[in-house]
């Protein structure tokens, strides 16, 4: 028979074993759940409850949040650009009852209990103004950068799509034209360039249709190379050739597209959107404001004529430290001042209120890069 101390020791050991075993099971379960692939969608309403109205618009928003996106308003209040944009994009989705809206929020990778990675992308799918699905996904699954987003888009898009007006919007930091390392703070070994974005658009459009309007809410996106790279997939592009404050372009004109774009005149809508974005930024922003609308068909001639000059410049800059490169208006380089430079480009420009450029009167709508002197 065991003595009391032995019985106590045995029961204590058993209790601790149960406790540690339970904790271990919980940890294992958490670990396995963090490793699983894309989960089934969480449906907010059942498919049978959808509206019978036909769809007229399709909007895709990609919101990059895996970097430094903090900004402040003039009262000193702090905001995160990606979170603010997500809220506005959801509002656009809710207010457009004749649209399907895809929102992809690419977030910073976090870890549960410091060790277990948590899904770092969130997808929202709206149709007829109602949230039909919300899913978390892993951003690093697949060989190409936008594999997860393309897969989700293909899975949820309305299959019967006769005459949709299609819009694509990207929000984030300047998309590099070469190198591209470090764009995602969570993925130091990944690169992201404008060619990756073009590839994603190619797969979404299946090389057969074009977006009626692409909006790049980033800095320095109005360059010959960027516009040329995206031109196969768009009829019109809105971009900021110069700096763009992290408060981005205002999305209000996208609310109620049935009212703002009733007859499908995308050209007029694009100019109205750009003008509104410019006016909103001008209210509080002291730095430069440049918003340009590119008619892809009409700028093609200029893009073809400067293609090799710009590519040579990129080749020269590739490999240089980012701090040694500066941006400038292409009009400062005689190689770009050609007939047709302003053809097909509508520019809304205001110089910075301070600094060396405050007396600059205009911008050509085309941004270039060069080595700093």
């Amino acid at each position, binding site marked *: 028979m065991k003595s009391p101390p032995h019985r106590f020791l045995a029961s204590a050991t058993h209790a601790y074993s149960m406790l540690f075993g339970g904790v271990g099971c919980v940890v294992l379960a958490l670990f396995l759940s963090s490793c699983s692939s894309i989960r089934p969608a969480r449906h907010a309403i059942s498919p049978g409850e959808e509206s019978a109205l036909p769809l007229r618009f399709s909007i895709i928003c990609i919101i990059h949040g895996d970097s*430094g996106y903090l900004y402040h308003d003039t009262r000193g209040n702090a905001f995160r650009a990606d979170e603010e944009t997500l809220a506005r994009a959801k509002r656009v989705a809710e207010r457009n009852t004749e649209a399907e809206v895809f929102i992809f929020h690419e977030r910073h990778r976090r870890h549960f209990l410091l060790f277990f990675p948590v899904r770092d992308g969130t997808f929202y799918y709206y149709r007829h103004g109602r949230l039909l699905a919300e899913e978390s996904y892993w951003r690093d699954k697949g060989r190409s950068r936008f594999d997860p987003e393309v897969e989700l888009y293909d899975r949820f898009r309305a299959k019967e799509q006769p005459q949709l007006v299609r819009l694509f919007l990207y929000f984030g930091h300047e998309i590099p034209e070469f190198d591209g390392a470090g764009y995602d703070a969570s993925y130091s070994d990944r690169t992201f360039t404008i060619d990756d974005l073009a590839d994603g658009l190619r797969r979404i459009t299946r090389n057969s249709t074009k977006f009626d309007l692409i909006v790049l809410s980033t800095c320095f996106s109005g360059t010959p190379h960027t516009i040329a790279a995206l031109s196969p997939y768009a009829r019109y592009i809105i971009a900021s050739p110069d700096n763009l404050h*992290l408060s981005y372009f205002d999305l209000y004109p996208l609310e109620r597209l049935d009212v703002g774009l009733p007859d499908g005149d995308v050209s007029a809508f694009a100019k109205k959107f750009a003008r509104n974005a410019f006016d909103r930024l001008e209210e509080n*922003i*002291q*730095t430069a404001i440049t918003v340009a609308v590119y008619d892809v068909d009409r700028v093609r001639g200029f893009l073809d004529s400067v293609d090799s000059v710009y590519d040579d410049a990129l080749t020269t800059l590739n490999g240089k*430290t980012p701090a040694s490169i500066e941006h400038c208006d292409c009009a400062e380089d005689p190689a770009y001042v050609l007939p047709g430079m302003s053809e097909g480009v509508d520019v809304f420009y205001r110089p910075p209120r301070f600094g060396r450029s405050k007396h600059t009167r205009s911008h050509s709508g085309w941004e270039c890069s060069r080595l700093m002197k």
Partner: protein
Amino acid sequence: MLTRTALRLTVMAFVMMFALVHVGNALGQDNLQKYFNDTACKVKATADPSQKRAILNDGLQNMSKALNRVESLRLVSKDDRAGIDRLKVTLQERQNELAGNNGYDRVPDGRLNAFSDFVVQDMEQADRTITISVVTLLLIIIIVILVT
């Protein structure tokens, strides 16, 4: 006293470096922006133009001092030095414009609030010009806290 300060600095540095493993570059850059935003808030909190000017100048100068100290450390990479140099040039330009030096018109008293917004917003663009690694950014923040 010196030993306690050095120990405190070392502990702070290790804690922040551990934190940055999980939160990445965003933390360093966010703190840089918060610093300038705090300066702008102090500028707007006072009505006296000479005080506004002094707060702005001190804010820019303290950051420049911190950049100089970090740059003098041997553990800063060549790329980081280039990023620091670029930031120092920008800060010097702001100080020049504030005072009306080096070809600038002096920022008028009535425009000091707007100028403080300009300093903040210039750091908050959707570009990638702050090309300094997270470790160096955090060192800058630590030193600027100790300098002020």
